[in-house]
């Protein structure tokens, strides 16, 4: 099979800039093209990750970015998969290369977000569970994050201090990251003094909504070799699996789980299955990893991810954290970028931002946050409506 490589990556810094999302996407795309040393006119396929909050141009992000960069006749696709949109756009581009239809693809995601809680689009939609959960329950995204956090406390004895320590670690990781929105050191005490939003989660432990853009240039390994692209990073796996029925863990934006009463097939829990599929494709396992970028939508969720991606058994994540294993310099650093804690979420860009960070780490270009000798990295991410993604990259 043709190998696909990351030839270049680029980002527009995360923030609350309040400008058109297209600008962030173009800045990120140009940075990625420059990083790869690829002329934009050589790109044969533009794969956009959609934003739902910026009107029609956001729904056709591939074409929007292609036009902004200049029409060249390249094929386009636009993908939406909630928080996993970036990974889905990456997978669409990779498939184009794998089938031999193109050698060079550009993947772009960018967003401009409103202030405050992410809320459904306007208009009455009583058939839409995402609308109904706000109307009938007042259930925001942090509601679900908090349910998992409280469950972790009840099952494993996790404490609010444990969650705060995750946040403090990620704050330290992100301090020197030029693309991070929040570069501020937080002590555990600062975090525990932050206002409670959704018990047991506090304001600074819940991912903010950000503006930002990220882009990846994917090429065939042959093309990278022919063009002498420096330090291409191998795409070993892209997982975009969906849950298996019955899904018995409550997930956004739903009111209830599937019932496990009539169909009692033992299925792999969804968040475990996301990384499992990636490991299977890559022929690698958790023991091979140098680092992980996981979706810390809340401080507590990062601990869940340690287990979902197989860094430890269920209930052992707190020990991993306290032993310093997941801190830069430890056995398996998690979120060396600073994670969502330092970025906030720019939905269609976020899964691509994870790929950018792993790429910089594997090339040894991550500066003060560099994980020494990094050779394999994984990303893990989850969105609502049954979306999730995991990407494995290696040197």
């Amino acid at each position, binding site marked *: 099979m043709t190998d696909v490589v990351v030839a270049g990556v680029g980002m527009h810094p995360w923030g609350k800039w309040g400008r058109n999302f297209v600008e962030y996407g173009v800045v990120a795309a140009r940075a990625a093209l420059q990083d790869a040393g690829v002329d934009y006119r050589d790109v044969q396929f533009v794969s956009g990750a959609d934003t739902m909050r910026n009107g029609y141009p956001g729904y056709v992000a591939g074409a929007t970015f292609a036009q902004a960069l200049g029409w060249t006749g390249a094929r386009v696709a636009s993908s939406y998969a909630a928080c996993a949109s970036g990974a889905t756009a990456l997978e669409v581009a990779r498939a184009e290369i794998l089938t031999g239809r193109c050698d060079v693809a550009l993947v772009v995601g960018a967003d401009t977000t409103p202030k*405050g*809680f992410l*809320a*459904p689009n*306007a208009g*009455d939609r*009583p058939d839409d*569970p995402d*609308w*109904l*959960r*706000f*109307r*009938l*329950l*007042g*259930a*925001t995204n*942090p*509601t679900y994050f*908090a*349910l*998992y*956090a*409280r*469950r972790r406390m*009840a099952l494993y004895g996790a404490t609010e201090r444990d969650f705060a320590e995750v946040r403090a670690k990620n704050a330290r990781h992100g301090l020197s990251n030029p693309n991070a929105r929040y570069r501020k050191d937080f002590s555990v005490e600062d975090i525990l003094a932050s*206002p*409670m*939003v*959704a*018990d*047991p*989660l506090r304001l600074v432990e819940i991912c903010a909504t950000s503006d930002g853009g990220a882009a990846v240039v994917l090429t065939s390994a042959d093309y990278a070799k022919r063009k002498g692209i420096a330090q291409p990073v191998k795409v070993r796996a892209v997982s975009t699996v969906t849950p298996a*029925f*019955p899904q*018995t*863990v*409550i997930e956004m934006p*739903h*009111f*209830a*789980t*599937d*019932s*496990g*009463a*009539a*169909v*009692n097939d033992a299925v792999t829990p969804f968040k475990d299955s996301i990384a499992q599929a990636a490991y299977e494709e890559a022929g690698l396992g958790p023991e091979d990893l140098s680092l992980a970028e996981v979706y810390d939508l809340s401080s507590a969720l990062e601990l869940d991810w340690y287990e979902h991606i197989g860094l430890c058994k269920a209930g052992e994540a707190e020990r991993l954290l306290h032993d310093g294993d997941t801190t830069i310099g430890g056995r398996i650093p998690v979120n060396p970028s600073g994670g969502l804690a330092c970025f906030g979420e720019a939905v269609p860009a976020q899964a691509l931002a994870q790929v950018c960070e792993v790429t910089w780490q594997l090339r040894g270009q991550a500066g003060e946050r560099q994980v020494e000798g990094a050779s394999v990295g994984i990303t893990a991410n989850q969105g609502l409506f049954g979306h999730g993604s995991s990407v494995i990259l290696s040197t």
Partner: protein
Amino acid sequence: MSDSSTSARPRVPAVEGWFTTDDEPALLGNRCTTCSTVFFPKTSFFCPNPACSGEQFEETKLSRRGRIWSYTDAQYQPPPPYIPRSGDYTPFAIAAVELADEQMVVLGQVADGFTVDDLEVGQQVELVIEELFRDDDNDYLVYKWKPVAS
């Protein structure tokens, strides 16, 4: 002028067909007549069990009692389409409740007057019907989970 809290204002469900409002209120799900899987909210047209091609469903009441799987609260007022109740915003609790017979977890607000300090994972709760919000004409009702006195 009559006091709206004492006058007989119409009480209507905030959503049709999701729960009964009698003395022993229950959630209304439906059951696939082919594979017997229960769904809440009701599914329509096609059975979501991938091994089943069922298209017929019968309405079924869900268990009125369950145990708290997890819980949280909303310290800040949620954005629209959430409709705030009159007066100053009062945080409310939300519970995910495990129903033993159905082997499913159902989210709901927790009954008025209870905060997260009153809740524990594993605690037994019962379905009640309470006000969600009101307008000039009606009180709109929703199901909530109420801790069972032990």
